[in-house]
């Protein structure tokens, strides 16, 4: 299922090869501090035209600060942000015209209808009259919202509200769409639906997308992922590259005393493991060959052994030394 959907942004990738050298978003050495606490440190990210970049990080990693800088609400102490050739720190209004912002907490007015919300926001971007009416109609149509246009936003489902919010971000045909946790809080069907509309809009507008997320499945759907932890970018690459960097397999051992087991395995098999809760994770080229050796020597201390391909959560764990909090099976969320 997931694999199929990842083919959707292909035309966008073609577009990208047409303009290979020009990143449409260029974030350089960005730092931001709140009083007594630094939120972002020396963050550099560039996104090419037509690319979908996901900034993956747990709550408190600095994602929201980055989002707020990109949406011109915060001014960093150091570094630069260029969107479509515009320095948005110097010329916020020029930047605002080129950027579509999709908030996690929707920017819609719940008391207004879908059509009112869209046309009001059209006014804010300098659209009016027939141009605006046509644009709103087109968006309502392509997002399957035509028969909802006179409904108040407050009575729509979360999925539909998010669709209207996306349409709102696209009204002025931005070069770059910036989204904050776009599918958080949506049920799986609505989430799938949202991604379909996002991909369709990217294709239609040759648009570039930068999104922040703490959800692995959202990150998996991006062309490239940058992992943000404690305000720093620790690694970036395509999801496939990142996972490939961990070698072949992850062997997961459940044990009553994983720390002791880790020590023994390190000593006897020369393999460094990582303890996660009651589990010990071992990265290895060929898990099927490691398991018999583990069973032979350590079977007494092991409760269960499983083998799986590495996912982005393993990349995160490896690069940061701790688990990505706030996922679906939210293990340990607590982190500074």
């Amino acid at each position, binding site marked *: 299922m997931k694999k199929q959907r990842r083919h959707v942004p292909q035309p966008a990738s073609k577009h990208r090869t047409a303009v290979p050298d020009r990143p449409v978003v260029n974030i350089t050495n960005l730092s931001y501090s709140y009083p*007594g606490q630094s939120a972002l440190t020396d963050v550099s990210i560039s996104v090419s035209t037509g690319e979908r970049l996901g900034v993956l990080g747990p709550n408190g990693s600095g994602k929201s600060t980055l989002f707020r800088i990109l949406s011109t609400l915060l001014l960093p102490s150091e570094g630069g942000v260029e969107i479509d050739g515009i320095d948005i720190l110097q010329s916020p209004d020029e930047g*605002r015209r080129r950027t579509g912002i999709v908030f996690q907490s929707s920017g819609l007015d719940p008391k207004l209808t879908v059509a009112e919300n869209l046309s009001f926001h059209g006014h804010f971007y300098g659209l009016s009259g027939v141009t605006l009416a046509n644009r709103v109609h087109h968006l309502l149509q392509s997002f399957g919202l035509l028969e909802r246009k006179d409904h108040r936003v407050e009575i729509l489902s979360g999925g539909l509200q998010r669709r209207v919010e996306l349409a709102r971000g696209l009204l002025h045909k931005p070069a770059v769409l910036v989204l904050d946790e776009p599918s958080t809080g949506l049920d799986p069907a609505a989430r799938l639906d949202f991604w379909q509309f996002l991909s369709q809009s990217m294709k239609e507008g040759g648009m570039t997308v930068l999104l922040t997320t703490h959800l692995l499945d959202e990150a998996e759907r991006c062309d490239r992922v940058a992992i943000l932890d404690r*305000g720093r970018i620790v690694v970036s690459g395509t999801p496939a590259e990142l996972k490939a960097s961990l070698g072949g397999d992850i062997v997961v051992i459940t044990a009553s005393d994983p720390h002791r087991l880790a020590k023994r395995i390190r000593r006897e098999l020369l393999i460094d493991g990582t303890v996660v809760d009651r589990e010990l994770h071992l990265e290895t080229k060929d898990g099927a060959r490691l398991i018999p050796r583990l069973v032979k020597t350590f079977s007494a201390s092991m409760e269960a052994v499983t083998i799986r391909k590495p996912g982005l959560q393993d990349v995160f764990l490896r690069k940061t030394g701790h688990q990505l909090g706030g996922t679906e099976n939210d293990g340990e969320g607590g982190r500074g």
Partner: protein
Amino acid sequence: MNAALTLVRREVLRFGRQRSRMIGVIASPVLFWIVIGSGLNNSFQYPGGPQDMSYLEYFYPGTLVLVVLFAAIFSSISIIEDRNQGFLQAVLVAPIPRVSIVLGKVLGITALAVLQAGIFLLAAPLIVSGATAGSLLLTFLVLILVALGLSALGFLIAWSMDSTQGFHAIMNLLLVPMWLLSGALFPVSGSAPWVAAVMNWNPLMYGVSATRKALYGVIPGVSTELPSFGTSISVLVLFWILVVTLAVFRVQKRQRSSNPRKAVS
């Protein structure tokens, strides 16, 4: 300007869809007026003013201003919620001149406030002796000026607040005392010197005075006690310009990073 008008339209549309808000804004001041007004009706005597003016009549202009104040307060509270999440945040990231955002919001709140005060103003002929169509119209225009100032003040305060709780504190410590010391409840002339001094510096005193003068017309005694109509109007206009200017500066400011060297990660 297009954006500002859209913001005003939004405010009015929203209000039309939550008409229950009107109860809080009009009903409580009217209740105060009836209870306090009737309670003090016979104990009150306007120093230097007409002997036959009842307290209900004296208190009426102040109640009109209280309706405006309550309307401005309620709308300003919504700014806090709107700013941290939702509609207003989307407005802030749009390429709109910041002055249009301030004016759109302030004019929107003003429109609602005078609409509600206007409803209570319709009762004036029953309360104020000698009220004419002309005096009601003039009163209405004065109330617009009062509403502009209070909306701008509400906006400025709300913009700097993170929580609605903070706004309630300011409301109790600043906005309600401003009204108590505006001449709405008691005249300057009969007050202790320090209260009178505070009242003379209170912009809302000029709002209540102008409303009183517009409503009563020229009544001997009242006219000498209150600042002249021209002075009151000038103060109201200057106050509005000052607060709107401050608000525009406040909105323009993007939250800057603090000094990173002082920060610990």
